[in-house]
């Protein structure tokens, strides 16, 4: 058995190459049609684009950033890193240094050239302690970015990163490239007058009303983009946002599974298309294992085994939510034969709590939103049946991170978002010493596995590591997962070319109207 497994692993690369060779034949050419204008209905107002001002981009900002800016790399249809502003890349043996060769002849919307120095200035500006940018938190793993010549960028990392090119594809504040000339000349106004290299240029922006993006006639990718204009409108109310799609005022809208009724209506409407993407990651909850009663593994296991996920899914999203049994989800390339999930078993949960001996009473933080309250109440009911009493503590969304970081919680909701590689979040969430390792649980084997998974390039070996990590976390029940990440966008059937909702980003920069 061992020999067969080893032989299979050695042959894996050949199988992969063969599979790739076959794929091009199945590509079907689509007739992209230039021209036209679309309106995107978003949940949130965009607050701005200057990383120094806004700190972190949100869902709405991502959509605009994907059109106004470019990233070095992008994800292809198979979820692998593909060239964008960077044409090729190599890494050092220890994966601590990555070298990117930049595309030449690219210009920012203000006419200034995009080159290695421009990229480095973006990075240095965010990293500069004097600027106190919140965005620096997300690039603490990058020691420095160098520009050895005009079209070469070197990332020197503090820790190994096997899949860096895939993780820098998300159009976040750390990855999109701004024009240094623009932010220097515009100062505070740059936040609302962003300049990038992307397929669209910001034409006008009336806060709270609309943002108009127009086609960049000098885009480096000839022939793209297809649409003449993209209009982004904040439509905060889910019902009227959906009504706008039905009545034709919006061509594509953001939605999520808590709005199950409208998603199901859209599925029945031949004029609409429901775009759904099974992302990696999950909605997760962290126990504070340094505080009673969660310092007892039996209590933690009992609570996890009391959760009836299919019923919970029915209660909060008419069954659209997909139960999760590990932090990776079906959308990840990490697929485990055995992820060590604790089964739903109410009787065993009761027995464990009885074995604990003391009353189980605790508070759980939830967001003060209808969604947060509902989830809290459902979990409360499950746990009551097992003999535990949970008190719901409602706080506004902005309060959860500081409470989490200062460990002022017993049970806190969190999310592992869809990323191309599990390393950034698994390492951040579970490595001892990390500010994001909320459970405060220290396990040498867990640390060893997390370290090893980021220094080997062999996918099979990494899968083994990540599945072992899942089994360990599930057994100790230091975090638990309720549902996988499922992303939705609803659009007019006329809208074509909409890509997968990688990282939860609704990217309309490549779309066209039929």
């Amino acid at each position, binding site marked *: 058995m061992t020999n067969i497994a080893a032989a299979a692993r050695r042959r894996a690369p050949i199988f992969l190459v063969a599979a790739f060779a076959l794929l091009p034949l199945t590509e079907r050419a689509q007739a992209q049609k230039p021209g036209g204008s679309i309106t995107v209905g978003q949940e949130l107002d965009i607050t701005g684009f200057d990383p120094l001002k806004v*700190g972190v981009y949100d869902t709405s900002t991502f959509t605009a950033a994907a059109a106004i800016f470019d990233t070095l790399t992008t994800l292809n249809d198979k979820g692998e890193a593909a060239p964008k502003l960077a044409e090729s890349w190599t890494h050092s043996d220890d994966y601590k240094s990555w070298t990117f060769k930049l595309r030449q002849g690219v210009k920012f919307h203000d006419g200034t050239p995009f080159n290695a120095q421009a990229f480095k200035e973006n990075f240095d500006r965010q990293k500069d302690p004097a600027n106190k940018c919140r965005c620096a938190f997300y690039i603490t793993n990058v020691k420095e970015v160098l520009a050895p010549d005009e079209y070469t960028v070197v990332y020197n990392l503090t820790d190994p990163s096997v899949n860096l090119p895939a993780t820098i594809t998300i159009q976040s504040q750390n990855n999109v490239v701004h024009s240094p000339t623009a932010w220097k000349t515009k100062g505070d106004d740059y936040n609302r007058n962003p300049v990038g290299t992307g397929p669209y240029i910001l034409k006008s922006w009336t806060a709270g009303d609309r943002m108009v993006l127009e086609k960049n006639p000098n885009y480096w990718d000839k022939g793209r983009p297809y649409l003449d204009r993209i209009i982004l409108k904040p439509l905060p109310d889910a019902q*009227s946002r959906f009504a*706008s799609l039905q009545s034709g*005022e919006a061509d594509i809208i953001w939605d999520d599974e808590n709005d199950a009724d409208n998603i199901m209506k859209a599925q029945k409407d031949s004029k609409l298309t429901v775009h759904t993407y099974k992302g990696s990651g999950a909605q997760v909850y962290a126990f504070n294992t340094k505080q009673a009663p969660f310092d007892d593994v039996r209590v933690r296991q009992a609570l996890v085994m009391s959760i009836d996920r299919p019923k919970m899914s029915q209660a909060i999203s008419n069954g659209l939510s997909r139960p999760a049994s590990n932090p990776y989800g079906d959308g990840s390339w990490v697929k485990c034969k055995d992820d060590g999930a604790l089964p739903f078993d109410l009787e065993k949960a009761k027995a464990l709590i009885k074995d604990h001996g003391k009353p189980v009473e605790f508070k759980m933080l939830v967001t003060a939103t209808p969604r947060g309250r509902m989830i809290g109440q459902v979990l409360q009911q499950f746990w009551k049946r097992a003999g535990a009493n949970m008190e719901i503590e409602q706080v506004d969304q902005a309060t959860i991170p*500081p409470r989490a970081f200062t460990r002022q919680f017993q049970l806190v909701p969190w999310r592992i978002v869809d990323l191309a590689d599990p390393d950034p979040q698994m390492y951040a969430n579970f490595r001892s010493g990390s500010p994001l390792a909320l459970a405060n649980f220290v396990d040498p084997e867990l640390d060893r596995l997390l370290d090893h998974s980021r220094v080997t390039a062999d996918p099979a070996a990494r899968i083994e590591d990540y599945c072992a990590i899942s089994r360990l976390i599930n057994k100790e029940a230091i975090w638990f997962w309720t549902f996988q990440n499922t992303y939705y966008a609803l659009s007019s059937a006329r809208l074509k070319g909409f890509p997968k909702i990688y990282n939860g980003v609704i990217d309309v920069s490549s779309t066209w109207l039929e």
Partner: protein
Amino acid sequence: MLNFIVRRLLAILPVLLAVSLLTFLIASLLPGDLAYVILGDQATPENVAALRRDMGLDQPLWWRYLSWLGHVLQGDLGRSFRTGQTVLQAVAERIPVSLQLMLMAEFIGLVIGVPVAIACAARAGGAFDRFMTGSAFAMLSMPSFLMAILLIYLFAVELRWLPATGYVPFSEEPLNNLRFFVLPALTLALAEWPGIMRVLRSDMIATLQEDYIALAKAKGLKPSRILFVHALKPSSLTLVTVTGINIGRLLGGTLIVETIFALPGIGRLLVGAIYTRDLVILQGVVLLVACGFVIVNFIVDMLYAVLDPRIRHGHA
């Protein structure tokens, strides 16, 4: 008359001062630390302490209030830490939207409410009176968000006569601008006219019982003149009061309707500020809305003097 105006203006000053103090206290007493909100995931104890010092949050409350008040009196209500916009800038962009919505809603409400009230009062107790009074109660009972969703479904999704959401400035496309406002204004108006109608109706009925009305009838005046001149004007004092209160409330109270219809008005700005705990915007908007309310009530007081000369001369 001048004395009356001066007396009313002097009465406003302490009110405005009290409003500013309450606004400041409310913002300061909200749970949670502002520094944590701004720092988010970088909220280490050292960062929090440094930021609190930078923002003056380590100063005593009274010092902060006087400092803030000093800036306000110079027209500086602060700058949002999220967007970098000044409060005045953010509000100025949105005032036209909220004003238009409020004016259209109030106009439609009055156009429906006043004639109905007069018709009901003219035949108090009749079939029309009972029907409309019942309808008014039904309308009052319906929440505005439900009305909004129903109107959107009917006129935008099914009939496709009007847009479901959105906004176009009047200066750009006047006709389209009005089309976008019909549903939101109607939503608010349908919630407004019952109050207007009931207040005016009961006042009219009371006025029609007065002796001088009987005298006017005895002298042979036309019924329409009695209704619209001798009865309506004396009955309109409370109507003016209610309208003034409605206008004041609508200035800041259209949060739900603006959110549902995605109108970029002051209400939306307020909701956004609450969600993101942008206290600078929150404080500024609340102060401005409160001042607007006070000013509207001042205008109502002036109208009292016009409608009832006895008030103008200080006798009741």
